[in-house]
């Protein structure tokens, strides 16, 4: 095989101006460029270039950019794709044009389920199924009576289901649950309801700004002081924790796919990233770096950009880099790797600016990602 | 002589956008005079008043009010020289009630009428004092527009067709009011279609045609020149 036109083009399609910018956005673009730099910008005599696209969280714009990248700019692979609606739309376009998609920031489990495209896409970092399972396996039995504050969308609901599955067998009960609209800023009413429920544990099944805001309200209204335990389950990236501040976020637990101390590569990457972006990377960004890196390795090895060829090679090669120590790309497109339950350190425990997390439990990828035996991916069944 | 000149308009031009309306108007008004501007529809009478007030933005020439050149001044500064303006379209504020309409214009000189005096003069308005301005009948709005400037203490008033749409009794009442104001030493420019009404009050008539002053008729000459007046006005 040959690399067409002597170029390998990578498109990072992400949100550069909206709410997802902090977890993906420019950080993802930078991460992709860092991966490219490790190849000196070249594979053999083919040059590697990176395009950045801002889908503005509009699927129309996303799919239109992706199509043009594929058809006009001859982009070989599109990555990041934060915002699942954009992800699905671009995945569909890639399938039709036989291009490659590496989802690193969108989380719907349907990417390796109903909508799976094993020959064209890989799902690299996390998914809602895994989040639920991780929580389900790892959430300690903090108490007997639980109250849920759940963000009203797939991610929050997956968390809620995961927690429920985890606590029920041990005899714990859910004494109340509210679904807060995505983007709620004021959680005081929900927090009061939690307080009134006399639960032992309040689980915050949400992420991003919602997670920070709800955590703040929990502290403000003195739930912790009153002896309740709080499991903030969706808080994720280090920058988000920084926004919340350790004072507020300390003690909360969440499932993550990455933290800086997993290996020396991760720490080196982190250092370099901070130099360039003045802030620590989050899992999506490290994931994008990892995805691009492994993609380029496979392209180099096969001397091809044909998705099927590249993906076949990637399946045969274990992933070990700054993102994970033991990743395996599965037939359905799922990259399976270890995940962690972490807890936020208190300000006293934290020794440096980004020293924020301690690991509570490590989990094997096989135990938390949806098993192939579930036959969730229809395209795989046909083969 | 110039110290009793309240207004001197010299070679004033005026435009609305691209259309040239005033073609070099010159006139003057002395202290305590009532002067009318008469002429057919569209002659430019209203435009002249708007030019004096500075709300016609494209204007040229010279307009001196009480010794001060105003051609470069913004309207609020001109008004504060002590001019009261009753516009043709009455300019009653819909968002203000009758009392608020009355209270709106700031006092520009001492000696304006009090609210009570005004309501005594126009009992109709007192009855409707809580009503939004534009809910008044056409005639009531006209009264309100006149009443409004009486409160400001302005000694120099520009009235644009103050009797339009008013019942005969009220026209007479306004005539009486104007006479009263004149006796109190106020200076007035009156734009009127109703010549019979105007002729009784005015010391001097400026006749306007196509944006120019084409004739000046003193009070004494009115009878003698009735024919040409009729032809000017198309009666």
């Amino acid at each position, binding site marked *: 095989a040959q690399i067409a036109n002597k170029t390998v083009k990578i498109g*990072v399609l992400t949100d550069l*101006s909206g709410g997802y910018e902090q977890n993906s956005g420019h950080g993802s*673009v930078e991460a992709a460029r860092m991966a490219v730099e490790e190849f000196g910008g070249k594979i053999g005599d083919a040059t590697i270039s990176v*395009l950045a696209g*801002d889908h503005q969280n509009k*699927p129309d714009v996303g*799919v*239109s950019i992706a199509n043009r990248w594929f058809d006009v700019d001859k982009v070989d692979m599109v990555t990041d794709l934060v915002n699942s609606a954009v992800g699905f739309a671009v995945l569909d376009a890639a399938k039709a044009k036989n291009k490659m998609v590496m989802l690193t920031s969108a989380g*719907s489990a349907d990417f390796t389920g109903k*909508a799976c495209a094993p020959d064209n896409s890989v799902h690299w970092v996390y998914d809602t199924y895994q989040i639920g399972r991780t929580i389900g396996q790892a959430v300690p039995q903090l108490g007997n009576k639980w109250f849920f504050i759940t963000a009203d969308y797939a991610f929050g609901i997956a968390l809620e289901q995961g927690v429920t599955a985890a606590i029920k067998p041990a005899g714990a009960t859910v004494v109340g649950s509210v679904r807060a609209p995505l983007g709620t800023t004021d959680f005081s009413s929900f927090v009061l309801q939690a307080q009134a429920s006399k639960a032992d544990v309040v689980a915050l099944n949400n992420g991003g700004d919602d997670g920070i805001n709800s955590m703040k309200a929990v502290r403000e209204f003195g739930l912790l002081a009153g002896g309740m335990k709080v499991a903030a389950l969706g808080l994720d990236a280090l920058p988000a924790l920084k926004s919340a501040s350790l004072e507020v976020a300390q003690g909360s637990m969440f499932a993550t796919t990455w933290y800086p101390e997993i290996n020396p590569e991760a720490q080196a990457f982190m250092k370099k990233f901070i130099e360039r972006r003045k802030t620590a990377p989050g899992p999506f960004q490290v994931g994008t770096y990892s995805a691009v890196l492994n993609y380029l390795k496979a392209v180099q090895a096969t001397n091809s950009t044909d998705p099927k060829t590249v993906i076949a090679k990637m399946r045969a090669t274990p992933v070990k880099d700054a993102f994970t120590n033991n990743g395996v790309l599965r037939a359905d497109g799922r990259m399976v790797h270890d995940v962690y339950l972490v807890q936020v350190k208190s300000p006293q425990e934290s020794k440096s600016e980004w020293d924020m997390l301690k690991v509570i439990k490590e989990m094997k990828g096989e135990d938390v990602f949806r098993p192939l035996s579930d036959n969730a991916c229809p395209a795989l069944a046909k083969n | 002589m110039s110290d009793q000149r309240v207004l001197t308009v010299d070679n004033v031009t005026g435009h609305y956008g691209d259309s040239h309306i005033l073609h070099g108007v010159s006139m003057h008004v002395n202290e305590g005079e009532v002067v009318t501007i008469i002429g057919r529809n569209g002659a430019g009478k209203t435009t002249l008043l708007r030019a004096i007030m500075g709300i016609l933005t494209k204007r040229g020439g010279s307009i001196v009010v009480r010794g001060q050149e105003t051609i470069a001044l913004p309207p609020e500064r001109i008004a504060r020289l002590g001019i009261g303006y009753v516009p043709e379209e009455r300019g009653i504020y819909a968002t203000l009630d009758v009392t608020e309409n009355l209270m709106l214009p700031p006092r520009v000189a001492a000696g304006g009428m009090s609210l009570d005096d005004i309501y005594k003069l126009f009992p109709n308005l007192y009855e409707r004092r809580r009503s939004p301005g534009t809910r008044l009948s056409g005639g009531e709005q006209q009264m309100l527009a006149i009443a409004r400037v009486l409160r400001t203490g302005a000694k120099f008033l520009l009235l644009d067709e103050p009797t339009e749409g008013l019942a005969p009794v009220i026209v007479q009442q306004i005539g009486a009011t104007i006479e009263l104001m004149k006796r109190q030493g106020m200076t007035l420019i009156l734009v009127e279609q109703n010549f019979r009404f105007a002729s009784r009050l005015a010391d001097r008539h400026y006749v306007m045609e196509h944006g120019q002053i084409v004739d000046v008729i003193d009070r004494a000459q009115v009878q003698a020149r009735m024919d040409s007046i009729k032809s000017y006005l198309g009666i």
Partner: protein
Amino acid sequence: MTHLPDTVTKPTTSNHTLIWYGLGLIALLAAPFLFYPVFLVKLLCFALFACAFNLLLGSCGLLSFGHAAFFGAAGYVAGHAAKEWGLPFELAILCGTASAAVLGFLFGYVSVRRSGLQFAMITLALAQLIYFLAWQLPFTHAEDGLSAIPRGKVLGLFDLDNIMVLYYTTAAIFLFGFIAMHRMTNSTFGQLLRAIRDNEPRAISLGYEVNRYKLMAFVLSATFAGLAGSTKAIALKIAALTDVHWATSGSVILMTLLGGLGTLLGPVVGAGVVQAIEDHLSSLPADFAVFGLFRLPPITAIIGAIFIICILLFRRGIVGEIQHWLDRRSGK
């Protein structure tokens, strides 16, 4: 609406219209050979949407702040019809358009009695309810949206996955909508709408039930917005929450204004400019910088700046300014 630019109140000068028409048709036919067809398809859908919006604003002076509801809801229905019910392309679009018409009737029924900002706010409130439904109803798939909507074949013959077939089909739909709306503006009905817009009490006093006329105009505008939305859903294969979000209603106003309110081609040109900015300026080489110095600010900032400049300097919009210039040249 007292101070709309004169392009709104002035009937379009007919001597230019024919030339515009001819040029437009040629451009429409030749475009896919000059520009990227997928982009053009999207552009045409939004252009049709903007025309539908302009129809209501131009003919009735009613500024709707909820037109995204028709555009988006029709997209969901058409998408669902094609994907889940397996309806052919034509029927799916028909379903979507019809649902927009029904929705338009309901919206219009409650809103046309009011005007100005109150009208805008009622339409906004109703559209927000639709947005809420789009979050909650199962068939819209909340934040994931509908994707991989099958395009099917035109008349069962031509495969729409062929980009040229897709383009010309969309162009045909656009042309149909555009001409239909143009005809409507210049119909016996349109004539009465102009009268009603100019002076509603007078029209009532002449014996017209003005609310029925306005309702009719509203439904027609909603229907064409629905046609645009359905076509978009099938052509781009997606229907998502952004389609029903108020920002989409805002952006269609922007397109119309930028192109020239009340002008024939304004909404089309406006849609083109906005789409081009949204798509092209937002996808650049990762190390792109202006003069090697600045990163380009986000699209929102750029669009915001264009908006400001447009309102301050080119209030008539692009087409409006050109028309004005032509009129003045031929007039003097």
